[in-house]
């Protein structure tokens, strides 16, 4: 036992670029990959982490001083830089408990499938990071592995059930049968959207609104282009910081570079994890042969919808405006403006493309992202520093629109860190009631084959 602990501690001390290849190789071997394949997967992830680290250092050394000068000159108190979900995912995969969390999430899915309490088969290992990060943060704060694993288990349970419940509307609105979307970055918005949409439907004017904006993409399209958006935001921050023209232009191009380069680094993670996901898919499809299941896909498959893009292009500039005026907000929106379409995709399906309702609900979701992001930025910053990411001096914090900035993740994180003995049972009872409502009263998945109908 002592040797195992010594080995583990040595691995931790060596840092994520060494730990990631080792841990991912082990995970790959468990899934039955050949040693050469699984080692290459692991090494790819280690390289991805090194890349993300490089870009983050570049970003914080460039924008950090500018953001500080901007705060001092203008009094706009936005000190938590949005470094994007990709950076957060990298921090997640670099956690010492990530291997346990991945298997815990997978086991939750398999047990729910065997018990016929879900129809969603989710072997998209890559997207587990949204569920894992909550466990990683809980473990980081409490130093308690059980609480950390527990938090990810609850995240997984909520995610699989929400993806079941949203499957009928996803199929109807986006026209993709047999697929559900267990992607927390899209599902989480439903925590706000379901009740709010019900409320808005009490108002006939909103319920029947046919409001539409034509050519939104033509006029607002540049908000959907990372390099242009990075350039503009960088230049505005530079100008607000009182920089001279040269420095403003330099900051603009640097920020454009960050927004273009982060996805390139993040895709290495995806590439490395792909063989593992495929092995898991082969295994599980064999195991659940003959049963009709919803195949869990990344919500990326629906964000190309015109209504989703239009809503997102309107929400993006409003997000920046809201960040400036929302009381208590500290998040400086940046890298995750690119993934606003994910945050609104489910809202659009829920309202059946009612643009006015989409904007109202979208803005409430945005406010929640900013507030939850501000509230957990200090912990996230400490966590990032602990895996060797230099956040820069200037007391700059980091945040994003992912991790605990999302309401579902925030609620679970708070329950597990703020008085877990009382709050975890409260959360579970509340979720059980919602479960009963969807499966027992509304019977949303009653038509799905292989389901008992009223499962609760």
């Amino acid at each position, binding site marked *: 036992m002592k040797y195992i602990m010594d080995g583990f501690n040595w691995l931790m001390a060596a840092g994520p670029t060494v730990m990631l290849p080792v841990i991912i190789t082990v995970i790959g071997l468990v899934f039955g990959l050949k040693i050469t394949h699984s080692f290459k997967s692991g090494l790819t992830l280690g390289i991805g982490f090194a890349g993300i680290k490089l870009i983050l250092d570049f970003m914080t050394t460039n924008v950090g001083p500018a953001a500080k000068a901007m705060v001092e000159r203008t009094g706009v108190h936005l000190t938590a830089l949005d470094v994007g979900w*990709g950076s957060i995912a990298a921090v997640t995969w670099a956690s010492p408990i990530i291997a346990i969390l991945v298997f815990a999430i997978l086991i939750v899915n398999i047990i729910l499938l065997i018990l016929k309490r879900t129809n969603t088969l989710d072997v998209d290992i*890559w*997207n587990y990071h949204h569920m894992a990060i909550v466990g990683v943060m809980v473990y980081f704060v409490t130093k308690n592995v059980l609480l950390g694993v527990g938090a990810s288990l609850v995240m997984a349970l909520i995610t699989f059930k929400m993806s079941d419940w949203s499957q009928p509307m996803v199929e109807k609105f*986006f*026209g*993709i049968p*047999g*697929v559900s979307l267990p992607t927390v970055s899209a599902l989480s918005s439903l925590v706000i959207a379901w009740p709010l949409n019900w409320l808005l439907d009490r108002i006939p004017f909103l319920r029947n609104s046919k409001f539409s904006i034509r050519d939104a*993409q033509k006029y607002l*399209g540049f908000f*959907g*282009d*990372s390099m242009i958006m990075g350039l503009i935001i960088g230049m505005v921050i530079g100008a607000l910081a009182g920089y001279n023209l040269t420095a403003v232009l330099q900051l603009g191009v640097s920020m454009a570079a960050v927004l273009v380069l982060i*996805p390139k680094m*993040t*895709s290495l993670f*995806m*590439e490395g994890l*792909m063989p593992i*996901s495929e092995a898991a*898919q082969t295994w599980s*499809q064999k195991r659940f042969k003959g049963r009709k299941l919803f*195949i869990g*896909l*990344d*919500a*990326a*498959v*629906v*964000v*190309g*919808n*015109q209504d989703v*893009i239009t809503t*997102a*292009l309107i929400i993006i500039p409003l997000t920046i405006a809201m960040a400036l005026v929302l009381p208590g907000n500290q998040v400086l929106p940046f890298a995750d403006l*690119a*993934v606003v*379409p*994910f945050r609104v995709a489910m809202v659009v399906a829920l309202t059946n493309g009612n643009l006015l309702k989409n904007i109202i609900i979208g803005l409430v979701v945005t406010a929640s992202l900013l507030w939850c992001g501000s509230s957990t930025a200090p912990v996230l910053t400490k966590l990032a520093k602990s895996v060797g990411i230099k956040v820069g001096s200037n007391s700059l914090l980091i945040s994003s629109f992912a991790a605990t900035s999302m309401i579902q993740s925030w609620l679970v994180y708070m329950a597990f860190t703020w008085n877990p003995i009382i709050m975890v049972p409260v959360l579970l009872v509340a979720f059980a009631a919602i479960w009963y409502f969807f499966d027992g009263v509304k019977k949303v998945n009653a038509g799905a084959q292989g389901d008992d109908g009223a499962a609760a």
Partner: protein
Amino acid sequence: MKRILVACGNGIATSTVVATKIRNYLADKGIQADTNQTRLTEVPGKVEGYDLLVTTGEFSGDRKGVPYVKGMSLLTGIGADKTLQEIADLLSD
């Protein structure tokens, strides 16, 4: 050398899966092809000059006349062979 643009929501996750599968398939068929990945919202600005556009989900924006194949079957595995065949046919014309 044929050039294929593969697009998805963030230009990272599902487009990596689809691009890898297309590359492997075409390599087996002896068709030389290069893939680039991008976000769906950036397709209209980038797609010009490509031989083929593949998206992982619904896309109804401007394709500038570039041939287009839906790639979702490559994620679910259902009908994947047909889609790959379609891609190979389009590229060998």
